[in-house]
């Protein structure tokens, strides 16, 4: 199966890949003084994982929330599958930095919540939710509550919820920043495996260079105050081997080093 999947990926990676999300001249101001984003132009090809990487204050989360339709841009537009974004839509699903799980609801209900809001009947939505709870490696925890889970497990619920609504684009806002290091690595590996199975387009916000290089097909580097696109990097890391090998791959290490040199000027 993996061979076939990889072949498919090779073809989508070619230059003819249709952009599923286009960001056109997006700018965002808060009040009159703070300029968070200035004239951002980006395309996100179908089926790829693109990271938005940059130091804090570069507006990467703001950009992601504008794509999600949770924030209104001051200028410009976002086009998803040919349609201009005016708010959240069924083709996009969001994974939150702080998980945004309902503490009063079980894992199962949390994972099924997107479907619940669509009015899908209980039996059907729980069946779908169970499938994705299993996919993210949480089967057996369906009736637990969020406070009984570790940070990593909670974010897996958040991911299952986003997968369950079957959106084309997953928007992940620093999903692993509240997860401890070991679990983060495991989760990153699982995410790579999952995207081969689920065939989604992923837009991923992170401040970790290693994480971005490890996961991404493309990395968009943003510079701070105001946020602008400073560089787009395609790491070309061969991810066919075992995870530990990837992290020792020279291409991986070189890219991390290269990005760090580009970013070190912004360190406080």
């Amino acid at each position, binding site marked *: 199966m993996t061979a076939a999947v990889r072949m498919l990926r090779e073809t989508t990676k070619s230059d003819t890949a249709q952009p599923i999300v286009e960001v056109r001249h997006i700018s965002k101001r808060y009040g009159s003084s703070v300029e968070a984003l200035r004239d951002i132009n980006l395309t996100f090809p179908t089926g790829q994982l693109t990271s938005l990487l940059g130091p804090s204050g570069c507006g990467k989360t703001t950009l992601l929330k504008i794509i999600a339709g949770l924030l209104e841009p001051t200028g410009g537009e976002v086009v998803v599958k040919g349609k201009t974004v005016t708010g959240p839509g069924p083709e996009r699903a*969001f994974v939150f930095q*702080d998980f945004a799980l309902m503490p009063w609801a079980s894992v199962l209900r949390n994972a099924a919540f997107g479907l619940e809001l669509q009015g899908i009947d209980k039996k059907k939505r729980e069946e779908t939710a169970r499938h994705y709870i299993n996919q993210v490696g949480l089967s057996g925890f369906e009736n637990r509550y969020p406070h009984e889970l570790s940070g990593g497990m909670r974010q897996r619920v958040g991911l299952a919820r986003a997968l369950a609504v079957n959106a084309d684009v997953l928007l992940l806002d620093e999903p692993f920043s509240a997860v401890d290091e070991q679990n983060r690595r495991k989760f990153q590996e699982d995410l790579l495996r999952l995207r081969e199975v689920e065939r989604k387009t992923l837009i991923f916000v992170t401040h970790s260079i290693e994480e971005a290089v490890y996961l991404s097909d493309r990395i968009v580097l943003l510079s701070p105050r105001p946020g602008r696109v400073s560089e787009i990097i395609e790491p070309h890391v061969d991810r066919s081997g075992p995870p530990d090998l990837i992290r020792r791959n020279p291409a991986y290490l070189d890219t991390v080093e290269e990005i760090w040199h580009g970013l070190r000027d912004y360190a406080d």
Partner: protein
Amino acid sequence: MVLFCLAWEVAGRIPINVAFPPFSDVVAAFGRMVADGSLPSAFLITLQPLVIGLVVATVIGIVMGVGMGLRDELEWAGVPVFVVMQAAPMAALIPLITYVYGIGLTAKVLAVVILALPVIALNGYKAVRNVSPSLRAMCRSFLGNRRQEIFKIVLPDASPMIFAGLRLGISAGFVGVVLAELLITPTGIGDLITYHRSIADYAEMYAVIATIILFSAVTVGLLERVEIALFRPEKKEHSA
């Protein structure tokens, strides 16, 4: 607890004051009043305005509180009024209520309402304002409409604080009803206190007062149990 009762017993026996009976006398008085039915019947009378007043205050308070939390113009018009009402000694109005509504049930219900309403409404308001913004964003990003956002996210997330307001409202309601019975007309518990004081049955009087204080504490504690049983599945099932 035992220590406290012992200290009371000793202090009563010394005696510090003629009007300070030992603990055992108070317990005996409690037994006498339960046996002759005066205490239970007084409680029934007192509970009537209390329950009516609390139901009224709860319904109005939660509706207004949630409304103020959700809508800016209601917040603007309502919150300052309730803040003043909560900070001010509303008990000062009880004599006024008496002389307008007479000495009947209405006046006592009103006394309960004016004391319990502000804290219930303000807690409802704060609860809605403190709902996690990320949960609300989550609901919107998964295409929840306004109705779903309110009923599936805002109200459940606000419910612990709303219940905290209800507990405060209940204890304020007890204050209201006791004050009303002491100030307006001696009926129920207030009558028992006034009567036994006037004939210098101090043990009986202490028993009545201790009972009403304990009763209010038990009611508040009971509400907490009900809240956990009905609304907090995550607290009930796995944690001890």
